[in-house]
């Protein structure tokens, strides 16, 4: 954890009501994780710091604290985002992806392979990293099909801005169950989730 003094001048506020704000975001997040690929609106959340968008920032405010080591991708490491997280969440920042409880990825194309993050332990698979992927959009992109717990039959999911090869990595991650990372996908005001249980198929695969 860094011990440098924080410059509070540029730090934008968090939830106007921390208790109600976190509860509202969490309920949508829980629904998202329970129903993989379903899209939820977080437009009520406060404006984010430069470098994050509203939904990703709201997820951080809701889930991060001193118990969760957080990995930031190089694009936001040492930036206003880092100061903002330290101030609001007091979360330790780590540069080792395998130590991260949460990883914030703002540039999915430049992210390390999923296998670099913590896949959990055979006895404690819950100790795996949750990745927060900031993407361009959650609707209107190339469509994939989701199946598994939380999906009745099959669900189409069409996020925008994921790099080539991403879905193959998600399939490999699913193939390692009970090991594996879980995903929270955040676009501007929208959020969706993909737990490791979800089977993904896409055209040409």
């Amino acid at each position, binding site marked *: 954890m860094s011990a440098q003094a924080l410059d509070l001048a540029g730090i934008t506020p968090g939830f106007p009501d921390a208790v109600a704000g976190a*509860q509202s975001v969490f*309920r949508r997040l829980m629904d998202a994780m*329970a129903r993989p690929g379903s899209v939820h609106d977080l437009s009520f959340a406060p404006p984010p710091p430069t470098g994050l968008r509203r939904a990703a920032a709201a997820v951080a405010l*809701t889930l991060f604290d001193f118990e969760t080591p957080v990995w930031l991708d190089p694009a936001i490491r040492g930036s206003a985002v880092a100061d903002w997280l330290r101030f609001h969440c007091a979360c330790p920042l780590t540069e080792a992806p395998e130590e991260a409880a949460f990883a914030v990825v703002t540039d999915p194309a430049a992210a390390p392979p999923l296998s670099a993050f913590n896949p959990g332990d055979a*006895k404690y698979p819950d100790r795996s990293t949750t990745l927060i992927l900031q993407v361009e959009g959650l609707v209107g992109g190339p469509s994939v099909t989701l199946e598994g*717990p939380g999906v*009745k039959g099959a669900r189409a999911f069409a996020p925008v801005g994921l790099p080539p090869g991403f879905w193959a990595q998600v399939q490999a991650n699913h193939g390692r169950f009970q090991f594996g990372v879980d995903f929270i996908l955040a676009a501007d005001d929208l959020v969706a989730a993909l737990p*490791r249980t979800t089977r993904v198929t896409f055209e040409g695969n």
Partner: protein
Amino acid sequence: MNAGSNAPERYYNYAYLDEQTKRMIRRAILKALAIPGYQVPFGSREMPVPYGWGTGGIQLTAALIGPDDVYKCIDQGADDTTNAVSIRRFFAQVADVAVTEDTGEATIIQTRHRIPEKPLKAGQVLVFQVPQPEPLRGLEPRETETRAMHAYEEYGLQYVSLYESVATYGRIASTVGYPTMIDERYLMNPSPIPKFDNPKLDDNDAILLFGAGREKRIYAVPPNTRVRSLDFEDHPFETQTWDDACALCGAGDSYLDEVVLDDAGQRMFVCSDSHYCAERRAAGHAGPMAGHQLATPETEPAQ
């Protein structure tokens, strides 16, 4: 936020738990949903009610609940059992939340030992109070052993135990907390619900959350997830059935409680799900003892 009975004094945070504890529980819920049936250890707190009396369910509800929720709490299927009344009063006080007995109207239903008869729907969360989360605990007392069995999917011990039951009694003699397999990976204790309720776990539209406060575990079944009750080809899973129908509402499809009427062997059977029964009676259904005093329980004074 609307002011409620807890607000002016500010003795405790909204919904009793502090925000850090809620975050810790919320993170555990997300992992529980991502690994269905797996027991996530969590830093369970000491609550103002005793361990074994719903501390796991209360902590889950406290981490979920908001002022827009409508909360229902049942014990043995009924809204008016003492512990359900006590827990419902707790949340009405500390979370300024609307309470209901109506299964269809509730957004969060906390339960001990039953799943309501009326099918749940998307948007609802069913929170189970769990005394012993470990399905294998009765067969192996050591946590270090059972955790390894889950890790390596070694569930032979469970099948041996069911088989021994068949050998001894001619049938699988498990009646409540009947072991279930979640999405063909994790063996899960569905809490002490009667096996009558097990089929409701499968492909349910609601989110099912399980909290064990004393044992410090949270687990979950996401909506529309495969939940299989263990059985053998020649001894398929079966649920309880009754020769009687509900004496009050005439229902033949609900779980019945046996009420002893006198010392001379007189019995009546009534729905364990009090709201289901009341709703049926309101719709004009009647059983053979429709006028019995149990059909008109005392009303609670307004808060």
